């Protein structure tokens, strides 16, 4: 009786299996495509959120209104699922790229040189040439022809035959690496910018006022002048702020800032964002102490009930009061019925109330005050001193910008290498024939029309030196091949 012994394969450690599966998942092209598709869906959801499309859906199908409301409320790009898919995609790109390096490098540096007659016979496009010379001289001839077309030609002698491999633009395949690395760098740039930079989107300064930038920069910005110019139709033709940048109180740079023309000093860049009118108010409490003396930008808010009346809000936590300030209607002919206050130029409507929401309604007192004339509301003396222009800037520092620029160059360079220098590959066998030698050659161009066309063009040139091919196998499908001459024939 035969002695049968069973050998079981040693089981791999659990951790190894898990790592292997994760690695495979991250390397999977199918998974990568699914990740891009999911990212696309997120982007589409976020894009539509910024449009009226969801509301159109709700208007058409009223029962979807709750979903649409949630859709509008969901900040897709700051959501956890979006961050997760971006992170997974970035890791997958990195892993995929690392995984592809050996294969691509192998194809470039050590391609397989031999082929089989069966492969050449089954290729849907091939050419066969015959000459009276020996195998080596025909091999040298076709090598010379292909080199003229910028092909690298590698040969290997197998018995009496010479197997031939030729390729062009082999290094262009490496373009995939800078392209994919650039995508990761773009994300890195965004993270670096968010983590180590700052961005103040509502940095408002009134003419003559100086305001600290903060963020440990030691910088302040003084608005010397704001100027806006309009064409006769009322469209702004230019608006610019003349500013001075101060470092620890000392002026270090000055000049004009306008849209598309920011000013940079050291780490901070100042961008023109918005502008308007402000009012300079002074408020003293019943004891005569000044509790507020500053410029209040008007127009950041509008008065409830009249969208054409610019308004501002003063919060005085030290004295437990808050003030709503409204100016004259800026478009009195637009819905004049909404202008209940009928304020004239140089007048302001002020409503003072307690900061405590429970007491706000019962403590409301309002009054119209006039430029230069102190008025008393609830014991507080309020003086409307003057009007001034204000500018709202964005003050930002983004250390991710150099990374972004490098990524942009890599991305475009990678794409250009991949698409504009496509790799072309040919295989052939030169073998002895009854009257000399013969060459059978075919492109590696399965379902690649352009590669086939390029092959035919090279073969046309080859025919000039080697004579007409003994056989030319053309693709069975496509009338254009029958008409192919490589010149100006219009097919069909």
């Amino acid at each position, binding site marked *: 009786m035969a002695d049968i012994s069973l050998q079981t394969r040693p089981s791999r450690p659990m951790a190894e299996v898990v790592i292997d599966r994760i690695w495979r998942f991250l390397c999977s*092209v*199918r998974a*990568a*495509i699914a990740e*891009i*598709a999911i*990212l*696309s869906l997120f*982007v*589409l959801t*976020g*894009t539509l959120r*910024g*449009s*009226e499309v969801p509301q159109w859906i709700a208007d058409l199908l009223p029962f979807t209104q709750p979903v649409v409301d949630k859709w509008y409320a969901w900040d897709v*790009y700051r959501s956890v699922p979006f961050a997760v898919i971006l992170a997974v995609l970035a890791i997958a790109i990195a892993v995929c790229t690392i995984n592809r390096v050996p294969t691509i490098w192998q194809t470039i540096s050590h391609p397989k040189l031999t082929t089989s007659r069966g492969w050449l016979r089954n290729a849907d496009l091939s050419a066969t040439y015959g000459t009276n010379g020996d195998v080596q001289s025909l091999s040298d001839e076709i090598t010379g022809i292909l080199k003229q077309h910028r092909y690298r030609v590698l040969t290997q002698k197998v018995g009496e035959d010479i197997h031939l491999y030729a390729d062009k633009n082999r290094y262009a395949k490496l373009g995939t690496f800078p392209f994919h690395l650039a995508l990761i760098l773009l994300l890195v740039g*965004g993270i670096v*910018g968010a983590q180590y930079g700052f*961005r103040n*989107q509502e940095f408002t300064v009134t003419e003559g006022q100086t305001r600290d930038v903060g963020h440990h920069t030691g910088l302040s910005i003084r608005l010397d002048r704001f100027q806006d110019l309009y*064409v006769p*139709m009322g*469209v*702004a*033709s*230019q*608006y610019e702020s003349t500013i001075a940048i101060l470092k620890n109180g000392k002026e270090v740079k000055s000049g004009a800032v306008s*849209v*598309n*023309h*920011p000013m940079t000093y050291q780490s901070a*860049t100042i*961008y023109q*964002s918005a502008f308007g009118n402000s009012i300079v108010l002074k408020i003293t409490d019943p004891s005569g102490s000044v509790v507020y003396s500053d410029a209040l930008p008007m127009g950041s808010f509008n008065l409830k009930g009249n969208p054409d009346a610019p308004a501002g809000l003063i919060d005085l936590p030290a004295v437990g009061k808050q003030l709503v300030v409204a100016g004259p209607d800026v478009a009195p002919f637009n819905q004049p019925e909404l202008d209940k206050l009928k304020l004239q130029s140089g007048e302001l409507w002020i409503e003072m109330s307690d900061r405590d929401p429970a007491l706000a309604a019962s403590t409301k007192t309002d009054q119209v005050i006039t430029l230069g004339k102190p008025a008393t509301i609830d014991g507080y003396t309020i003086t409307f001193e003057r009007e001034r222009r204000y500018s709202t800037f*964005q003050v*930002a520092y*983004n250390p991710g*910008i150099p990374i*972004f620029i490098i990524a*942009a160059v890599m*991305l*475009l360079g990678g*794409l*250009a290498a991949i*698409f*504009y220098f496509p790799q072309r590959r040919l295989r052939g066998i030169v073998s002895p024939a009854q009257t000399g030698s013969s060459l059978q050659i075919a492109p590696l161009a399965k*379902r*690649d*029309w*352009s590669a086939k066309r390029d092959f035919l063009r090279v073969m046309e040139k080859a025919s000039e030196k080697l004579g007409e091919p003994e056989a030319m196998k053309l*693709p069975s*499908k*496509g*009338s*254009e*091949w029958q008409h192919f001459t490589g010149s100006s*024939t*219009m*097919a*069909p």
Partner: protein
Amino acid sequence: MVRFSFYCFAASSLAIWAAAICYILYAVGRVRLAHTTMVTTTGTSVTSTGAQFGPGSLGIGRAGTLMTCFGAFFSGLSILLRAIAAEHVVLSNMYEYSLAFVFACTASYLVFERAYKIRQLGAIVLTVAAGMTFYIWSLPVEMREINPVVPALRAGAIMPFHVGSAVLAYSVLSVSFAGAVFFLVANRWSPRWLPSAEMLDDVSFRAVTIGFPLLSLMLILGSVWAHSAWGTYWSWDPKETAALFAWLVYAIYLHTRTLRGWRGTRSAYILLFGFASLIFTYYGNYFFGGLHAYGGV
């Protein structure tokens, strides 16, 4: 000068409409009624009539090419004259943007026609261009006048390159759309007068290999511009993200085609979807708010 520019646009519209009709006739081919008579063993004859389709007339195809050349020439001249009159690059509103698209669309189609030596694609591409001319005619008359450029659009050289790359990308990708449509037709019915499905697939792919880098360039230049104008290179603005969505769709196409070997029907459907996303981005100004609102109508 502005009026003459408009007359040139009108001439290009007529040429493009004529070209679209010629190409459609060329692509549809000729239909002939064929009568077949059979005689039965009893001596009775039976006659049947059926439609036979054949390639379109070469003359009509050539007329389409000629009209497209006229359309490209006159739309280009219209842009040039308008730029001379305005003393700046004219890409600042939907009229000018669409006019540039008409020129780029016809010109890029002619390049593909010459490269691949096929005319059938013109039936789709020139129809898209003709549709765009109808859209331009439907715009308010005031837009035909030259208006001062708002400060936000005065960004020096980057603005024409950003908008120009968008126009070129959309134009070239409309050729890929045409290739995809004809691929589906060729794959479904295999009409003899159409080029091979493989060639049409290749036309679409080549168009994407030009259009996708241009889309990337548009996004990058837009980011560079956004950085100098808004202080951030990406704002998640709806128009930005719509363009990003289109970019992702074409990225899916390229990955599925080059790495998964998807060629043919599935790829063609992705291209149809990609083109729909481009239209969505192009006309997004009508229903998007956000930072690109000034570029709208």
